[in-house]
């Protein structure tokens, strides 16, 4: 029933570099316009933003209007939480919490309270303090293969529900990356070097998405990020469905 144009081709895979087939250039800009965005609902109070950023919720949503957003000038600013390599989905959201259904708003919030609770005790700082549902760290910095393991969408959802806006990792496991984009919960950004070794939990960090840059104010260092590409607008819109509706690709409700 849905007819999605080929221009959506590159949605999920901006970070993939095939070895023997170079992707054709993305013909994005001219085909669709983002004419409205959902109400920005940035849940993390400690998070400062330079302009209103649309953040999806899992509430029953219709496309409500707010300021039009430019996808290239997004800035995130906040504290970072640093983890290592191969952070698998069991560490991001242990299986015992998977009875919570993400599309249920109340359970969505609960999921957030358990984000990264599966990390070993060597991580002395908790991502979400006990008895809280929100984190004070809006940015997660990781190493290789972030999000490996299960296909559970609860993983990016828990991070987003807790208030994280972006993960910056060296590389991602594919299902986690895909789920992050499809849900619009967090921006799965990629660094060029091992930022996880140069940042510490609690550092103040700014990400300039439009300039593909991460600045660690605590250390004074700047880092180049890989462009999020076509996945960016999808996350901006609040996920794949919201994006497709917003761009007129699918009707807001089918019969």
């Amino acid at each position, binding site marked *: 029933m849905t007819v999605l144009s080929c221009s959506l081709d590159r949605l999920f895979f901006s970070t993939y570099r095939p070895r023997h*087939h170079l992707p054709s250039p993305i013909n994005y800009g001219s085909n669709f316009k983002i004419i409205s965005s959902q109400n920005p609902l940035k849940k993390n109070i400690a998070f400062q933003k330079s302009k209103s950023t649309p953040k999806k919720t899992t509430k029953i949503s219709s496309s409500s209007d707010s300021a039009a957003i430019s996808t290239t000038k997004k800035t995130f600013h906040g504290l970072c939480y640093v983890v290592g390599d191969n952070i698998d989905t069991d560490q991001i959201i242990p299986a015992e919490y998977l*009875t919570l*259904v993400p599309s249920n708003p109340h359970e969505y919030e609960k999921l957030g309270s358990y984000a990264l609770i599966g990390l070993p005790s060597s991580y002395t700082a908790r991502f979400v303090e006990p008895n809280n549902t929100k984190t004070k760290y809006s940015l997660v910095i990781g190493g290789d293969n972030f999000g490996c393991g*299960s296909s559970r969408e609860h993983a990016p959802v828990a991070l987003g529900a807790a208030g994280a806006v972006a993960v910056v990792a060296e590389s991602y*496991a594919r299902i986690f990356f*895909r789920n992050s984009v499809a849900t619009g919960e967090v921006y799965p950004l990629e660094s060029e070097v091992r930022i996880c070794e140069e940042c510490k939990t609690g550092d103040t960090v700014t990400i300039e998405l439009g300039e593909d840059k991460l600045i660690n104010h605590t250390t004074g260092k700047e880092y180049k990020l890989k462009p999020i590409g076509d996945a960016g607008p999808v996350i901006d819109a609040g996920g794949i469905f919201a994006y497709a509706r917003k761009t007129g690709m699918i009707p807001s*409700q089918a019969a």
Partner: protein
Amino acid sequence: MASSAFAPPSSSLISHKHDFGLSPAKCKRSHSRRIVSVMAPQQTQRTPASTGSVKTAMTLTEKILARASEKPALMPGENVWVNVDILMTHDVCGPGSIGIFKREFGQNAKVWDREKVVIIPDHYIFTADERANRNVDILRDFCKEQDIKYFYDITDLSNFKVNPDYKGVCHVALAQEGHCRPGEVLLGTDSHTCTAGAFGQFATGIGNTDAGFVLGAGKILLKVPPTLRFVLDGEMPDYLLAKDLILQIIGEISVSGATYKAMEFVGSTVEGLNMEERMTLCNMVVEAGGKNGVVPPDSTTYKYLEGKTSLSYEPVYSDQTARFLSEYRFDVSKLEPLVAKPHSPDNRALARECKDVKIDRVYIGSCTGGKTEDFLAAAKVFLASGKKVKVPTFLVPATQKVWMDIYTMEVPGSGGKTCSQIFEEAGCDTPASPSCGACLGGPRDTYARMNEPKVCVSTTNRNFPGRMGHKEGQIYLASPYTAAASALTGYVTDPREFLH
């Protein structure tokens, strides 16, 4: 496809070649030609479309996606809309997927095809956790509303046997119920959906949002993966199982070695594996980061499917000149039983080198190591030993059928004993109700869940921190042979202690 071309693939078509576990001369003889000849199908008449045009050589995975996207040819890297043949979901991700489906397509929307959605409660079943129980109810309500043809329901949690529809672990149930067919596209809201690739189909795991989309549209946007080829040759030693082979491979390429790629398993050893062993091989493809795994279908596949499915299917095979990203070759006769040590599936070690690791328990179960063949293998070791286990040994059959087999199938060489009898004599726990069980921890009251820090040898698929419950638990992934041997000694043990 003409079967007259027997030359091995020319090296220019393979970016990297790796040879492992071999004495150089042996591995490189005409076995590679034999591989090629086996790829020529022996049975069904195939239309030119399924053989792939001569001009565009494609791998098995590429061919499946080409056909499913109605394109004559595809190359890795292309993003295509693919028709889905089967969408599977279970009690953990089903409710979320259903929620998204209703939210996006409308509360009164209907699924794209009521016969192509297979709903299998299996993860958190035998528990008092109210939310877990509620999630099965949500599935039931949806299936009633949508008139879903395949819903393997359970209503009486106190006795799985009185639930005639209930199956158990989704990936094993899919195979046993004939939903896995060569050449098709099967998606599931579970990372181990790749298991079905053992049937020569494209099978991969997706999240709730993607599943919600497929429920309504019957299609999904996928990027065509390049294929890594794993050639496994040599006679399979009688102390090795498919689990050892896949642990060998994951240890070789690491937990991200196959990210975004397809893993194709060929070779004389693979041809000699039965379907359940092939499923074990494909099951852990995701542990290497792989998108999907495939084994070319053959007479073993067709025989397994006889009587299980009434739908016709059309297998496809990699063209002889198809391009692979890399090729890895293994001389299986040289391999030894392995474990994956805590806390990563690629933390490979020889079982015999871990013989000083004292263990607290053994777990035999899951889609990876809880199938009939897996229990037969464990029984073989217990039978050979004749002794009792030294640590609690938990047995969790994957499905009702597996449970039945444990209680009815005779173990060869035992003088007519069933697996269950052998397990009882060895002092194992009574085989439990079929489900995913403690493979992924689950609610606190899950049978065999690791609620304290313990050392466990397990036939499951992941051993990241906290996987089976407790964060400080130590999980050694192993084959059923190795797990049984370890149970008998109370230490990580190479099964050759008992099997030779």
